[in-house]
């Protein structure tokens, strides 16, 4: 369960200080699917970074279960990201020189698994997203939808508790968007994940159990 209490995040831009998040207080129970919407520059990605242990707030606390993400050092935040949180990015962020199989395996590298274990788990993850026969392909040899499936496999191969998706369908056409959202929803249901999706797309947001709106760093529940 996530618990954010009075989270504020400020960035220095030259002599100016920009407030990306302002006193955000939020609780997300385990297993919930949440959509976060808002205009560009409203603070969506900053909030996702706080939830994903990628950054620390300027003020306030962020708890994931027992762990206080606002206080932990870089090393421990890295361990939490490696074990508990999966990321899916708008631009897929696959490593272009690695095959689909190897890209998925990168998520297992920090866990210290053996080669055979890594291979079998990555293959199973690709199978789960419908790309069992594309493991040897480079990202450039795959369509956008397939690349995002590989990214989802990479996020889920370590069996995290939380999946954070930042505009996961932003680079996809409508048909592929629906396929990817069907896949994410299915995985969320099957695995009991906490799924948090940042999106501009209302069609995507409507699929979530809970919708949040963030504007100028201020978070509001959407009825």
């Amino acid at each position, binding site marked *: 369960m996530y618990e954010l209490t009075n989270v504020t995040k400020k960035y220095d831009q030259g002599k100016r200080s920009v407030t990306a998040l302002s006193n955000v207080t939020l609780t997300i129970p385990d297993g919930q699917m949440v959509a976060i919407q808002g205009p560009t520059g409203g603070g969506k*990605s900053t909030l996702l*970074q706080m939830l*994903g242990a*990628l*950054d620390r707030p300027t003020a306030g606390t962020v708890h994931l279960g027992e762990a206080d993400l606002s206080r932990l050092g*870089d*090393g421990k935040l*890295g*361990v939490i*990201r*490696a*074990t508990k949180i*999966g*990321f899916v*990015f*708008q*631009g897929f*962020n696959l*490593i*272009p*020189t*690695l095959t689909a199989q*190897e890209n998925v*395996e*990168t*998520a297992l*590298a*920090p*866990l210290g698994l053996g080669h055979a274990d*890594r291979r079998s788990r990555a293959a199973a993850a690709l199978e789960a997203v419908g790309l069992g026969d594309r493991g040897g392909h480079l990202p450039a040899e795959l369509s956008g939808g397939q690349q995002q499936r590989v990214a989802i496999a*990479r*996020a889920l191969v*370590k069996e995290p508790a939380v999946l954070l998706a930042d505009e996961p369908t932003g680079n996809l056409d409508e048909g592929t968007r629906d396929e990817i959202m069907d896949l994410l929803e299915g995985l969320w249901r099957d695995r009991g994940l906490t799924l948090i999706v940042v999106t501009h797309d209302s069609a995507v947001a409507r699929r979530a159990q809970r919708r949040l709106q963030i504007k100028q760093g201020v978070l509001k529940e959407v009825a």
Partner: protein
Amino acid sequence: MFITYLRRELAGRRKQTAIVAIGMALAIALVIIVNAVSSGVQLAQATVLESVYGVGTDITVSQTPTAPTAGDTSGGPQRFDFGAADGTATDGTTTVSRSRLNATRGTSTFDSTALATVTAVDNVSGASATLALENTTFNGALPTFTPGTAPAEGATPPEGGPDGAGGSSFNVDSFSVLGLDPADEAVGPLSAVTLTDGRSLTKADAGAHVAVLDSSYATSASLATGGTVAIAGTDFTIVGLVTAASADAATAANVYIPLDVAQTLSGLTGQVSNIYVQAASSTDIAQVQSDIGKALPATTVKTQADLASSVSGSLSSASDLVKNLGLWLSLIVLAAAFLIAVLFTVSGVTRRTREFGTLKAIGWSNGKIVRQVAGESLVQGLIGGAAGIAIGLLGILVVNLVAPTLTAGTTSVAAAGPGGPGAGRGFGGAAQAAATSDIVLTAPVTVSVILIAVGLSVLGGLLAGAIGGWRASRLRPAEALRSIA
């Protein structure tokens, strides 16, 4: 994962890998070639010096000749005086013959007790004394002169002499003689010669009238092993023939005889002209030189380094070229190669910001990313190193196939002693004994050269990897991802 990722990255970014590897390869090849040629030049210098001063000689001790004293009327060693009763008169012709054995012109002798002084110096592992001599033989035939008679007016024309008409005929022959300790072959003249016939001098030859001849001289003088050679009017049995490494070497002579015999025959009892010294190790040479200089203040003490500075000719030019241009060129190219490797690595890290941000987001630690970047750079460096070794060895092969011949000249400076009439020598001026030889330059391949190449490639790779890795480790995952959003 490390190996797979590394392999994929290097294969996937062939252009960058190739540029870094080529830069590193050229630099390392240049270092290898310059290093090998430098070794070859040093070997050539050592060969020249060994041929001149003997194998294993680290230090030479000699005494600077002093200028003749004013009013010296001795006439020098080249002057032959004959009395009226000298010679053998036959049929109106008087034949005279005389041999003299004197110290070689331009050298000076000093007390042989200096050898014991030198040997007593700390860290002297061997020393050998020599006496450089010149044997001059005068042969002549002239009309028999009857004292107290003056030719009368209308007397018959002069008779006698080699032409029967009162003429004369003279022949002056000279050859060099080196007196040496027959027991010492490790250092000094005997170390710089090769036995071609018979035997060399041994400890048992001390005091004996035996000689070893330079084979070229023996041929020209029609002498052979088993025959005799007359030195200062005394017959010496020829026991062997040798070939000097260089005919112009300071230690080369036409005839080699035991030192004690040479001293006795030349009247230079207890005198030597040179001492050749071997230090216990190369690190002791400076100390030994200094100590000998203090113990024998009247002598000139020279080391191989001093001797090396006397090497001139194209060998000297090659040495200067390697030392100056070659060294700096290697350093500049090496620095450029390292810089290229660092810049490409840093540029690669900047280009891969999203990649590293993503890896950090999925849990990769800074250490793991630094290792990955450093590993890639290291392998690029090693690829460059391997190519550099191959190119370098090829370059060395070309040098050895071309085998350029260098001319080496050595000059040893000595002040001239008193000169005899007609000897053509100055008084007190510096006389230079020059020796030249042709040396084929070879570039040896040594393990150290290969190790240096491998070390440089590892160093270059690690340097680039360390800087690139440091830059990658400074990327904060959120910022890395935000920068490409």
